């Protein structure tokens, strides 16, 4: 009798490789590392990634890797639901699609039809696009939105390459967001004020229940602290705030641990925002994850974005900001105000 645990193939047991990148050095490095995986040649990554009726949740249990080249743009304007931290020219780069972590609420589950990971091995194409933008104005670029680059660093080396690229371009500021425990990257790259490492934090009970495969709170704080010691600017992201019945206690305990483990005076800044997701993404999430309490929560649809009921949202955000003000000055706390921003835009 088998159990559900041994039902699935191991992660990256199958690697789909576009013909066009079969000879790319990174492709060769990755295939050498996963020499036991089944390699399936493909014409275009969308033949696999964009198939209809894929089950994101099931694919997450046995993720395949797709190695491809970028046929469209790699750099996009930042979305209104994302925090721009006051930068005028806010973009994000998509060099990898999807993540090895499995956060129940992740917007990628609503955005993509597949749970498999696509690595665009031709990172140099993204660099060229950013250089084109830099010729017009300074750029603030989030490079780890559609994935967790630090978690995939040993596979791709992309985080280090982005950091080196930013170091060489003085009008470029990048943010590398993560939920990883890894610290080794800070021993190998050069600190730069314009390379911000952002740690998304949640209470441990949220992590254990809803952020599968990610580092514990303690591990994240340890990595963030190490990054600061090494001279890197560090941002803490309490975004998304996730509701649970005892959220006040849970977040209060978390902040106690933050205070205990981090020299908060050295933080670059902090962002706060409660969970929110475009309604079409949420419709897909609800269909694909019927057993997820986060997906099935009775949210309000305000302006095409699913959010906690207004009272609850305000209470959660205000409570957290009040608690945070004992750790850092008010000016360092960025609130997500996309509803106002949207109204302003229209």
């Amino acid at each position: 009798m088998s159990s559900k645990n041994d039902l699935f193939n191991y992660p990256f047991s199958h690697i789909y490789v576009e013909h066009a990148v079969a000879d790319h050095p990174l492709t060769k490095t990755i295939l050498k590392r996963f020499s036991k995986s089944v390699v399936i040649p493909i014409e275009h990554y969308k033949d696999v990634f964009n198939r209809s009726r894929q089950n994101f949740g099931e694919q997450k249990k046995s993720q395949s890797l797709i190695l491809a080249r970028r046929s469209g743009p790699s750099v996009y304007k930042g979305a209104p639901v994302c925090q721009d931290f006051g930068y005028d020219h806010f973009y994000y780069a998509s060099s990898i699609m999807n993540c090895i972590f499995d956060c129940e609420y992740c917007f990628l589950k609503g955005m993509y039809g597949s749970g498999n990971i696509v690595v665009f091995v031709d990172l140099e194409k993204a660099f060229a696009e950013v250089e084109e933008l830099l010729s017009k104005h300074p750029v603030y670029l989030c490079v780890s939105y559609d994935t967790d680059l630090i978690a995939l660093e040993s596979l791709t080396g992309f985080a280090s390459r982005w950091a080196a690229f930013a170091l060489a371009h003085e009008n470029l500021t990048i943010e590398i967001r993560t939920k990883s425990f890894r610290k080794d990257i800070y021993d190998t790259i050069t600190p730069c004020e314009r390379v911000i490492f952002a740690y998304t934090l949640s209470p441990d009970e949220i992590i254990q229940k809803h952020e599968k495969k990610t580092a514990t709170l303690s591990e994240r704080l340890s990595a963030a602290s190490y990054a600061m010691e090494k001279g890197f600017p560090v941002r803490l992201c309490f975004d998304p705030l996730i509701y649970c019945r005892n959220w006040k206690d849970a977040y209060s305990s978390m902040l106690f641990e933050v205070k205990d483990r981090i020299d908060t005076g050295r933080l670059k800044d902090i962002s706060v925002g409660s969970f929110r997701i475009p309604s079409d993404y949420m419709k897909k999430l609800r269909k694909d994850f019927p057993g997820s309490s986060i997906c099935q929560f009775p949210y309000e649809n305000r302006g095409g974005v699913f959010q906690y009921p207004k009272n609850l949202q305000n209470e959660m955000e205000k409570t957290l900001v009040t608690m945070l003000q004992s750790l850092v000055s008010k000016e360092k706390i960025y609130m997500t105000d996309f509803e106002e921003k949207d109204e302003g835009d229209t």
Partner: protein
Amino acid sequence: MFFFQCALAAEAKPLISALSLRKDTNPCPYDTYFAEDSSCVLAISGIGSLTGASSATYLLTRFGFRSESDFFINFGSCAGKNPGLYLINKITDSTTGRTFYPDMLYDLSSCGLPASSENALVTVDKIVSSLEDPASLYDMEASGIYQAASHFLSPHRILFLKYVSDSGVKDVKAITREYLTECAQKQIPSVLSVMEKLKDACDDDSAFDEELFLSTALALRASETMRHELAQLFRFAKAEDLPIEEILDSLHEEGLIPAASKREGKVVIDELKKRLI
């Protein structure tokens, strides 16, 4: 539930016997067999991609597929260099040049299907007399079956189990029914083992109490929109393991259920929401 599709009766015969399937005596476009306990159903499609697609659609619609829990398995012969049973990970339609990729999520090595048994397959419209690409397998249905079945099921729930019967023949009569049945018979233990293993992936434990939902919606005089809202609360309660039945009982005791009007019903749904979060 397992939906099986074989091109020929000679290929299906050992499976029908091993699963103790009964022939459906109702008028059917394809010879159809089913298990008494509704755990599986099998159709014999005939040869060719189009009839493969048609029979897949027939099976899945007639027997009420459930996309969250059912599997569709094409079991049959193919041409190839080396004998054995193969799990197909890539299908190319030789006519259109299109490719299709069933998801390879399950570890079936304990069923006699290790990673080395995975292979690409080309669907052709005529019997092959020789192997154009010796590394590939050749059949006449898979492309059509995949295209049809993928309208109903996720790509990880569509499996192609192909056994090599020949390496291309000039005369189709060279392959007898008895020989095909004999080849199929050898693979039955693996097929049964695959079914046993995939039974673990047939559970759908996210469904809520439909009867309680319907009676509540009726008692609240719920409109279609209110039903959606109520269903969402039932799903949330199920996911969070909250005692929605107890909460509804207390709303009954407090005289809020049944509601006298749709407007009152809406107030009760709001109250239910408050008590759940």
